[in-house]
């Protein structure tokens, strides 16, 4: 399909395109100032890294007074003393390029056809979840690179894979399970494996998990917590950030079907891939790994479409057009979302909250939590990690009650009990995310009761203070 000369030019081009795709949102955000990050998660990690640097406390979130997982990534950044500006703007992009290189090396080693490899790379660099992971500060990018690196060591039959597997078990149990599933199925499939390496890795990892579980404060199962599954969280077109495009998901399944059809021995790998994909619907941290397998199968599928002899030739062109359009739309829509993630109206309102007392709590939509915590330095009632704690379901019920109550007495009681002093409402909450109309639910009480004073208002945000008389 591609001749050798084209292949030589295509590969550097793909890497440069990948670099540009990752750099564009990063540069746009860099020019806007330090309070403008590209994702909600970045605000959380930067705050925790800052806390670690300032106080050395690694197992408790001092602002919210809740336990947190010990994270080697934070420790590494602290140890290397890397400034925040590099952590935010450079490090993710560099890790993205490393990930691309490791991915390309691995698929070649796994025996994927060269044309399919090129398509896989294109699918990967244009995948919104790839852009998200390698333009924002998050721990999954680090886990993924460690995982890919350990695969490389395994393929090279290096004994270094034994301590490395232990390290992965130390980092995240979900990645540890994936690592073993993949190397075991690869060994079974290839019939050329070093038993010592596999047993050594397994024993080391189990020891690490055991030590983690009983000797250290932090629980390795913490990183394994299950997310509430919703269709909109796994599809990029429905607003998910760590999500997949629906067309690439379809190509993934068609790719699997093509492999089955070609040779039944691929059944095991295909089933494992589907299993990991389904697991990632519930374990969000796995999705960045899953996009790699989706890219591989999509690449195989597109290669098949192009090389297959079609009875109706124009159908092939239309199908390829749909695929190209969906890839371009998904990545452009996501980049637009990322660069517009935070407007100055939001930042101004969060800065306003700095005037609050330290023991007071802000109530808003949970997705605003990390930003309020980082910029205002204040507690929020809920945030995106609250679901990992036992109090989550109680808090979620209270949240629902607060959003839709029309009983002033009940509202006052809940606010006092939870020390909520400020209610922050943004335009997304007003336009369907929480309410449909300007007087829906609690908005009716906020605008008609003397117990609330509007203390901040701009185009995007309104903040009410509960005066509680």
């Amino acid at each position, binding site marked *: 399909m591609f001749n050798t000369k084209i292949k030589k030019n295509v590969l550097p081009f793909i890497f440069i395109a990948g670099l540009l795709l990752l750099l564009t949102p990063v540069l746009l955000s860099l020019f806007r100032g330090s309070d403008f990050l590209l994702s909600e998660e970045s605000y959380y990690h930067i705050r925790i890294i800052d806390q670690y640097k300032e106080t050395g406390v690694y197992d408790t979130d001092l602002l919210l007074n809740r336990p947190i997982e010990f994270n080697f990534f934070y420790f590494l950044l602290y140890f290397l003393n890397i400034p925040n500006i590099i952590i935010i703007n450079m490090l993710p992009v560099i890790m993205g390029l490393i990930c691309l290189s490791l991915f390309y090396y691995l698929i070649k080693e796994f025996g994927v056809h060269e044309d399919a490899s090129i398509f896989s790379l294109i699918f990967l660099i244009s995948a919104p979840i790839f852009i998200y992971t390698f333009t924002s500060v998050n721990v999954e990018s680090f886990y993924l690179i460690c995982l890919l690196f350990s695969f490389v060591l395994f393929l090279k039959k290096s004994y270094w894979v034994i301590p490395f597997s232990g390290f992965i078990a130390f980092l995240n149990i979900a990645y540890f399970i994936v690592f073993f599933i993949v190397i075991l199925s690869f060994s079974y499939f290839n019939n050329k494996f070093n038993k010592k390496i596999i047993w050594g890795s397994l024993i080391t990892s189990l020891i690490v998990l055991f030590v983690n579980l009983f000797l250290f404060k932090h629980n390795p199962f913490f990183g394994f917590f299950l997310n509430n599954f*919703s*269709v909109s969280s796994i599809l990029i077109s429905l607003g998910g950030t760590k999500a997949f495009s629906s067309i690439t998901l379809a190509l993934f399944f068609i790719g699997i079907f093509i492999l089955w059809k070609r040779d039944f021995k691929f059944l095991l790998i295909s089933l494992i891939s589907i299993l990991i994909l389904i697991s990632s619907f519930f374990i969000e941290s796995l999705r960045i790994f899953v996009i790699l397998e989706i890219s591989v199968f999509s690449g195989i599928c597109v290669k098949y479409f192009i090389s297959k002899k*079609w009875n109706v030739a124009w159908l*092939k062109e239309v199908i390829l057009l749909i695929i190209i359009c969906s890839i371009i739309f998904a990545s452009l829509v996501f980049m637009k979302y990322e660069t517009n993630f935070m407007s100055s109206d939001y930042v101004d309102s969060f800065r306003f909250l700095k005037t609050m007392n330290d023991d007071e709590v802000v109530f808003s939509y949970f997705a605003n939590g990390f930003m309020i915590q980082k910029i205002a330095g204040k507690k929020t009632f809920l945030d995106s990690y609250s679901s990992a704690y036992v109090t989550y379901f109680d808090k979620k019920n209270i949240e629902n009650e607060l959003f839709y109550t029309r009983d002033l007495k009940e509202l006052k009681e809940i606010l006092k009990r939870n020390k909520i002093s400020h209610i922050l409402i943004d335009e997304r909450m007003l336009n369907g995310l929480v309410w449909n109309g300007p007087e829906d639910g609690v908005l009716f009480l906020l605008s008609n009761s003397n117990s609330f004073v509007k203390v901040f208002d701009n185009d995007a945000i309104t903040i009410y203070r509960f005066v509680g008389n």
Partner: protein
Amino acid sequence: MKRNTLIWLILIFVLILGVRLFFTFSIDGVSYESYSILRNVDSIKDSGLPLFNDALSFGGREKFFSPIYHYMLAIFGFVLSDFLLVKIIPNIFISLLSVIVFFISLHFSKDEEASLLSALFVGFIPVLFNNTINNASIFSFVLPLFFLVVYLFLKSNQDINYLNWLVVSMIILVASHPMSIVFALGLLVYLLFVKSMGFRESSKEPEIVLFYLMFVLWATILVYKVALSAHGFEIIWQNLPLTLVEQTFGKITLAGSLYAIGVLPLIFGLSGLYKNLFSKKSKAATLMMSLAITFFILMFLGLVQVVVGLMFLGVILSILSAYALKDHISNLKKFKFKYSKFILILILIILLFASFVPNFFLLDTHKKDIPSNNDINAFLWIKNNTPENSSVLVLAEEGSVMSYYSNRKNVIDENYLLIKNINRRYSDLNSVYDEAFLTSALRTLTFYSVNYVVLTENNQKKFDRRFFRAKDNVCLPLIKEFEGNNSPKIFKVNCLFNVEN
């Protein structure tokens, strides 16, 4: 096709359309459901755009739907009044279904008489007849389109010239209604059956299915993105209040199906299915079988409305009937009695009409499903005697009718998609009529910004409500009462609930 068959087909079409028009014109008005469509058609006629931003529904909201059917009606709306538009055009669309069914049946049975009977069956499926007669239902348009796609899919396997038409009709189907997703699922089941039943695989079929799957996936997400991200997987239940979900997506029973689909399509359809499975296999019949299985499973899982599922199942079974009828007709030909074939057809037609007789009794139900003249007068009174931006409370089913006649905001209607906290709103607004205390009623009315409450004739008869219990001469006075028994009453909300109390 023989000339006689063509004449018979035209006669069947005319008969079905004639019966439908007779029924629909026996009813004085159009059903509550039609008014939402009529408001969109009127908007297209006025501004060229449907009501994506509806200032009157739920006090003002955004709507997401495919407007193709509304545009189709609007084209005819320039020459027909709203009343005639709802009565005539959807009935013509749905009557065309019998022609399409004839050609599908003919395609695989190769028997013109059996196919004519199939076409006749389809015209009188009770569930289809009752739900598309006087309500401008979108299924009047989607059903023929769906089966046109099925027909073109079958034909394009034989003749490449049909392919362009297939692609065009597929695109229109996908753009018209989410039922296109069910067709995609049906095609996947069909491919599985083709593989497992040992048919010779057509090389074109997987390509067409692949194209359709890709397109449906892409287009569905594009069209319904906002609704999907708001409701997720629950979009299937259209954000209906819980009390309505049970009624709409309830369980199917054998007796219910028998009554809804009709005895003949069910018996002959199932025997056609049996024949395809165990005696003479046909790819076209397998496609129909796959669609039937898909609809049945989706209905069983509560993912498709029972009524909608039964309408589609009824048509599919009618088509499959041709497969069984063909054998019965050819068996009868072997008898020496000269008129045996005609006697069979006569018996079938008598049985068909016998199973259709209950529809005559349902005529009375249809008459209850339209707003009364008194209620319409009340809405017109509101239009002439209230400020333009007033909000009026009526029952959910009356919301669109009220907005259509009075041009005032409703607080609730039957388009629940994208409305937050719908269960609470639905129960609040339904129970406000029965509130015994003024303060409780005022709390709800103030909260939903209601300015006027109309206790319609329909509301009084349906829930046996004679009066608005919380009526108060100062805060909730009766400002207009029409003459007659159960006549509509209009109340004005003069006071606001003080939240500090």
